[in-house]
């Protein structure tokens, strides 16, 4: 162990039956104890990436490679994949209101997950559920387990969702915009929780479009643009010195919370291409301020510095 990454996507390519590529080329790595933030614009393919790892996209054709704990997932039988789902890797979703079944108590839903993967009795499962809810900071976990999703606040629901995801001790936790539907003060509570999970040794993949959230919770970041990973590296380094022009523009567009107030925020002209009309060369070329002739050939993801990778001709040594 150790050397092998927990999760490694290599040239993951996903297309519709019609042939339109939704994901062009996604390569990223998550190690144990790391949290990888996946950022990018709406529609860039962040959720699709997560769902392909979970194997929840039956209608789409995937190629490339998804290695989880050294095992190749693509081409795996659904029966085997299912055993990993929920036990080896777990996922939490954006809207905890709709993600739970509305007609059963949250305790019953967490029990179900435990019993799906481990041969324990109802009583034991419930005891574990209550303990988990308590660990997630849900007040009076025993009573909370008996309540229905609509009877809990958004923050408590998301905690219950995280408790469910963690119930079988997964090695990888995928969180798809876990705080977008929540208030800032509640978001802070959930992010603190995610940091604790990461520190306890699990790998975390956190999907978001909020750079602040990534900076706060993640150790690494991958920037996705139009179905491609264009930059990946340690958070601090990427934040301090973004390499890819898109990452640079993305960071500049965030209004500052202190210091001088700019007259106008820098913006990116144009908009991202749709999956069926991606440019031949660099996908960011139509909006890039450094575009030059050799951008007409799509640049591969390279490693100009130790641990940092970027797909842009500016860094072709």
């Amino acid at each position, binding site marked *: 162990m150790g050397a092998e990454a927990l999760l490694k996507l290599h040239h993951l390519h996903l297309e519709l039956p019609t042939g339109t590529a939704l994901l062009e080329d996604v390569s990223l790595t998550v190690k144990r104890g790391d949290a990888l933030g996946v950022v990018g614009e709406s529609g860039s393919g962040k959720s699709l990436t997560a769902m392909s790892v979970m194997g929840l996209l039956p209608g789409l054709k995937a190629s490339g490679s998804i290695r989880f704990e050294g095992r190749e997932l693509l081409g795996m039988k659904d029966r085997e994949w299912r055993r990993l789902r929920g036990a080896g890797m777990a996922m939490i979703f954006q809207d905890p209101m709709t993600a739970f079944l509305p007609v059963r108590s949250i305790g019953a839903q967490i029990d179900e997950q435990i019993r799906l993967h481990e041969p324990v009795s109802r009583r034991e499962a419930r005891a574990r559920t209550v303990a988990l809810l308590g660990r997630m900071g849900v007040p009076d976990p025993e009573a909370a387990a008996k309540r229905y999703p609509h009877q809990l606040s958004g923050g408590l629901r998301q905690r219950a969702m995280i408790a469910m995801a963690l119930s079988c001790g997964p090695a990888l936790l995928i969180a798809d915009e876990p705080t977008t539907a929540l208030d800032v003060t509640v978001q802070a509570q959930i992010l*603190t929780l995610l940091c604790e999970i990461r520190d306890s040794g699990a790998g975390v993949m956190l999907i978001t479009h909020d750079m602040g959230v990534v900076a706060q919770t993640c150790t690494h970041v991958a920037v996705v643009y139009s179905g491609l990973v264009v930059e990946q590296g340690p958070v601090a380094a990427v934040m301090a010195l973004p390499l890819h022009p898109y990452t640079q523009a993305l960071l500049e567009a965030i209004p500052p919370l202190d210091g001088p107030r700019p007259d106008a925020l820098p913006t990116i002209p144009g908009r991202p291409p749709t999956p069926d009309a991606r440019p031949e060369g660099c996908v960011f070329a139509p909006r890039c301020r450094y575009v030059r002739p050799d951008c007409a050939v799509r640049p591969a993801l390279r490693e100009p510095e130790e641990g940092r990778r970027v797909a842009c001709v500016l860094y072709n040594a």
Partner: protein
Amino acid sequence: MTILLEAKNLSKHYRLSHGETLRAVSNVSLVVHRGEALALVGESGCGKSTLGRTLIGLGSPSSGDVFFEGERISGLSDRALRRWRPRMQMVFQDSSSTFNPRRTIGETLAEPMRIHGRTGIAERIATLLEQVGLSSSILSRYPHEFSGGQRQRLNIARALMLGPDLLVADEPTSALDVSVQAQIVNLLRDLRNSLGVACVFISHDLAVVRQMADRIAVMYLGRIVEEGDVLAVLDAPAHPYTRALLDAVPRPDRPLPPPLKGDVPSPIHPPQGCAFHTRCPLAQPRCSQERPQLRQVGEGRTVACHYPLL
């Protein structure tokens, strides 16, 4: 600066089916000056949207008054309000629902002017489209052909058609990506500078508010707890809740401080005394008994707290 809009002791209560009352807005007083941008911030359900709507006469207040240019507009009938409508417009978060999917952009944009019997519609549309950064060639297209950011621009153009003095923008950027958000924030600032439109900007994103607004009013459970110049308030908040909101914004340069405990209490049964005392890290016994009144702390700043941070 002259006062454009003034609210005095404004309250809005909703009667619920169980005979309970939900106090969405309680006893709010505020002023908006001509050409100024006032931001309303606070967590979900604190009454920002309700206040914004009540300010411009969409729904009458349960008590209290609203004055526009010194004339009372609250409690007027819809008919009587018609005269004021063109002067106050609203922009909503969800731009897709504002547009009828079966009508072209041109028709939708022309509608407010047609209703109010104005002339020179075509020229007005052309100027406004230029101002929001779109070309006139899009008039014959349908809403679904636009991106979220473009639709929000059109939405703003629609609100500006009648040349309002006041724009209430309810979370105009919350559904947008960061890069598109930046475009809309810039646009709203430009429009304010060039047209002198006053703006009530509702948001929960403090960074956007800081970029957009002149003054800020922080709400908690239907009440304003702190008000003042946006840079001054965000640099050194006086109310513990404002402090907590600011601390909860994730930022690269510092680890997250311990977050506030608990959730926002229900507005149906708000806590006694200071409504924030159930979560306030500085709460003292007095806070749960006596409600703090808004009082002056420094130049143009007010705060409702027994133990302010200033």
